[in-house]
């Protein structure tokens, strides 16, 4: 298992997961999300190649109402 921080919360997850697999396991399958790892935006078409590593800090965002 590895330690990651997702949206400010420390979590553990299996080693060797791709970003897509991690998002699936979190139930975040919506198209309306964007992901940053260590403050670098991860384009959608790279999600199935990018591997989540120990210590990664992830931000997963979506759209909400705002002015």
């Amino acid at each position, binding site marked *: 298992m590895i330690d990651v921080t*997702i*949206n*400010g*919360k420390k979590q553990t997850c299996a080693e060797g997961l791709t970003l897509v697999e991690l998002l699936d396991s*979190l*139930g*975040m399958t*919506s*198209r*309306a*999300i*964007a992901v*940053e790892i260590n*403050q670098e*935006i991860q*384009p*959608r078409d790279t999600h199935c190649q990018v591997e989540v590593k120990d210590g990664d800090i992830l*931000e*997963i*965002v*979506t*759209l*909400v*109402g*705002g*002015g």
Partner: protein
Amino acid sequence: MTDSILEESSQPLVGSSGADEFCIAGHTFQSRLILGSGKYDSFEVMRESFEVAETQCVTIAVRRERLHDSSGRNILDFVDPKRFVLLPNTAGCYDAETAVRCAKMGREILRGLENPGADWVKLEVLGDSRSLLPDPIELLKATETLVRAGFQVLCYSSDDPIVARRLKDAGATSVMPAGSPIGSGLGVINRNSLQIILEDLKQGDPNYPVIIDAGVGTASDVAVAMELGFDAVLLNTAVARAAAPIRMAEAMKYGVKAGRLAYQSGRIPMSRYASASSPEVGVISKRQR
């Protein structure tokens, strides 16, 4: 004051006919009303307000996805990204670096949705949480970075004409000065500065879009802004928190239209004394003037 202050910046489009379209960042809108999607009591009221207002462009915010969201309701179920151009904002950012990250995440989401707004952003970089006024230095830095990254940057700005000019010079697609603080409902409180901004930014570049963003309380505020010569109005709270939001959305639609028509029509100058509307000859009175 014998001459009209308002008239100075007025550029009546006499004889203009047909569609009065609003062009910005490659988009062409028939509506000059941009609405925010925050603070509504329900998504249903929000959707109906957009409908009645006939808006074509809606702002949205970027926030952390909740890890365990049971409601399953997403704003996109109520604002069809194929019908409305979505304008993502960087609300809540207090430094250039965070605002740039936020803008990139908003763009990434919109690209996934194939929304035509994908490359634009309403850039907010705030100075403090009480006034919600922009930090002009961070705002300028973020503008420069985002322009370099290929963004069409619409800058939420203060009503400072020099800051507005610096933002335009930095490549901002539009400068959007606040009429008054966000959500305050104070309307247009510094007409003079706003007129200087309009004059300055449109000098030799009349189609450069300048939008009033924030502070609107009611329909007359919108009309005043449009009469001054702003290209469009962006508002949120005045509709979302009105006692009857859907009806207020309709009022805002007419406020924009009335103000725009008045601007195009060239208002009369203001004068200290009266000017009779009825003929002065042939009056039956014996009274001498």
